[in-house]
């Protein structure tokens, strides 16, 4: 009669964080990929893209495991629906990272000299934005410990704000980058130009999703 033991379910917060770490690996892979991409080292890109795909698949496995361990009878301190939303947003970030990697490896895409610097800045800011939202997720267990309120909640609120600020910076950077792209239309073929725009759009999705993710965690906080 181990009634008490049966009462305790498997907490989804720790797996949620390990999922986020997998997603983070994808994004880190992307950082590496961008460096190679601007150096136009086309052979290495394929390899890194494959690596990111593989990590994305591993993240998917963790995600499925979490979803399978969330039976309806489980009582959580956070709304079940919200938790599932948080997981899918994390998952979307990994998917986007994979998409970016695939787009970058589709074609031997030239990087115009005028773009290079701003593009790297854009990429760095995007990954920074993601890492801020990852920090929010890393705070989840501390948040649980402090009952979703108090100093911890304050800290998370600040972080969420920081994510929003960073996302805005990414947007500004993207605008600048787009202007340069449209100015350099005669350097690129139509296909190259189109691919470039798609890549930029995908990369900016990373910061959008990161902000989204941080906001979702924000709504779980106790309102004082």
């Amino acid at each position, binding site marked *: *009669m181990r009634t008490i*033991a049966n009462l*305790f*379910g498997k907490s989804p917060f720790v797996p949620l964080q390990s999922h986020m770490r997998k997603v983070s690996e994808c994004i880190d892979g992307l950082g590496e990929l961008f460096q190679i991409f601007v150096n136009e080292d086309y052979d290495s890109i394929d390899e890194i893209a494959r690596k990111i795909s593989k990590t994305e698949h591993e993240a998917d496995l963790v995600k499925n495991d979490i979803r399978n361990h969330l039976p309806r009878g489980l*009582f959580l*301190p956070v709304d079940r629906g919200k938790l599932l939303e948080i997981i899918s947003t994390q998952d979307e970030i990994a998917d986007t990272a994979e998409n970016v990697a695939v787009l970058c490896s589709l074609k031997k895409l030239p990087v115009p000299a005028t773009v290079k610097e701003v593009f790297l800045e854009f990429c760095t800011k995007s990954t920074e934005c993601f890492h801020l939202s990852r920090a929010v997720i890393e705070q989840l267990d*501390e948040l649980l410990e402090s*009952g979703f309120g108090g100093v911890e909640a304050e800290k998370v609120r600040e972080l969420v704000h920081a994510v929003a600020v960073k996302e805005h910076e990414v947007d500004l950077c993207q605008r600048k980058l787009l202007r340069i792209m449209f100015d350099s239309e005669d350097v690129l073929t139509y296909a190259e130009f189109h691919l470039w725009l798609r890549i930029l759009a995908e990369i900016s999705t990373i910061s959008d999703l990161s902000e989204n993710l941080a906001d979702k965690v924000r709504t779980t906080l*106790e309102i004082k």
Partner: protein
Amino acid sequence: MEHADILLALAGIFGFYMAWNIGANDVANAMGTSVGSGALTLRRAVIVAAVLEFSGAFLAGSSVSETVRKGIIDTDLFSSDPTAFVCGMLAALLAAGVWLQIASYFGWPVSTTHSIVGAIIGFGVLYGGVEAVHWPKVWQIVSSWVISPLLSATISYLTFKLLLKNIFYQKNPLEATKRLAPLLVFIVMTILTLTMVFKGLKNLDLDLELGPALLIAMGVGIVSAIVTAVLVRRIESPTDDDSMSYHRMQYLANSLAKAKQHLRRVKDVSDPSVQEEIEQLIDRTEALTTTMDRKKGPTDTPSLNKVEKIFIYLQILSACFVAFAHGSNDVANAIGPLSAVLQTIAEGKVALESAVSPEVLALGGLGIVIGLATWGWRVMETVGRRITELTPSRGFTAEFAAATTIVLATKLGLPISTTHTLVGAVVGVGLARGMGALNLNTVRDIAISWVITVPAGAIFAMIFYKILMAFFG
């Protein structure tokens, strides 16, 4: 009475078997939370449980035993037929024991208390028809099975909300814990002492009326609170680099931003010769801000860890409380029927007046301890390994709420299920957003086991009663 020796021996064996069952299964549920949260090692949990279970059973176990012995069925009906009464109580003990063994085998969450109450009702109905049972008392007992988890859930919910508000939502949780800990110790110690001395220690001729009992309890509470206050003062507060730094950093960052703003203003209105110098100053402030930002980044809150360290000690206290409360309530399941049998055999008629003897309570307590020592520790280990998500602050809250409810029920003479009460308490903490994940299917299982256990105990008791009567009747 014929076969008195055999009946006596059977009573001893069955009663001991029942007590063994309680020690083997139920204690693990009561103490497993402490092992799970890491407040007690398995070895210490077994020692604490053994000592406190025995004291609870011996010192405060009589009122519930009285209820089980003569509150459920109309003992007057048996005055002409003591053998039937003895066989009935023996059948009830055996039925509850066997049913528990079966349920354990299949892993059903049944309760010892419910089994024995069901079994006694069973043979009562068989012997004297429906009228033989004190239905008002039975309804009171049954309603206490619903009320006790609800009450403990309410207490734990409120207690945990209090902890959240006064500790976890504070800017400095550690300082808050240090302030609150003496109060918590005071409350636990006062209630614990009160249950012991207020009409409690009959077996030591120490039962006091409410007034003096309250005085003694408060005295013990205050002394322990003072000791706690002295002890927690020794715990070092985290330095500025730790938790407080977050708010300080915030303040520093704001001030720096202001400084920059002012410097710019000065630069705008000053001579070109000074302007360059101010420009440098602004640059240096800028650099300082960047360093601060880097430092401010997300860090763990070490003070929360220290809070839990204090709660480890509080949880040891509440674990003692649970063990005491558990012993005082659950010993009745074995001892109630046993002492009924022993007295009837000794006096040759169904005894009504004399109280449950201390020797029998001691025997029950011993049975529980042996059950714990031979099998219970293993179950406790399993339970502890399964509930690692529980932190000491949560464990303390749940145990405190459950133990308070159990001693209250014990004082009212109500046999309740300790495990179900504890489940209620844990769910209460969960409702206050204190738990990672609770499997509420267990609550459904418990409801089902309520519906099944009482009739099952009754049917087993009827069968064993028929068999025993065929031999001895």
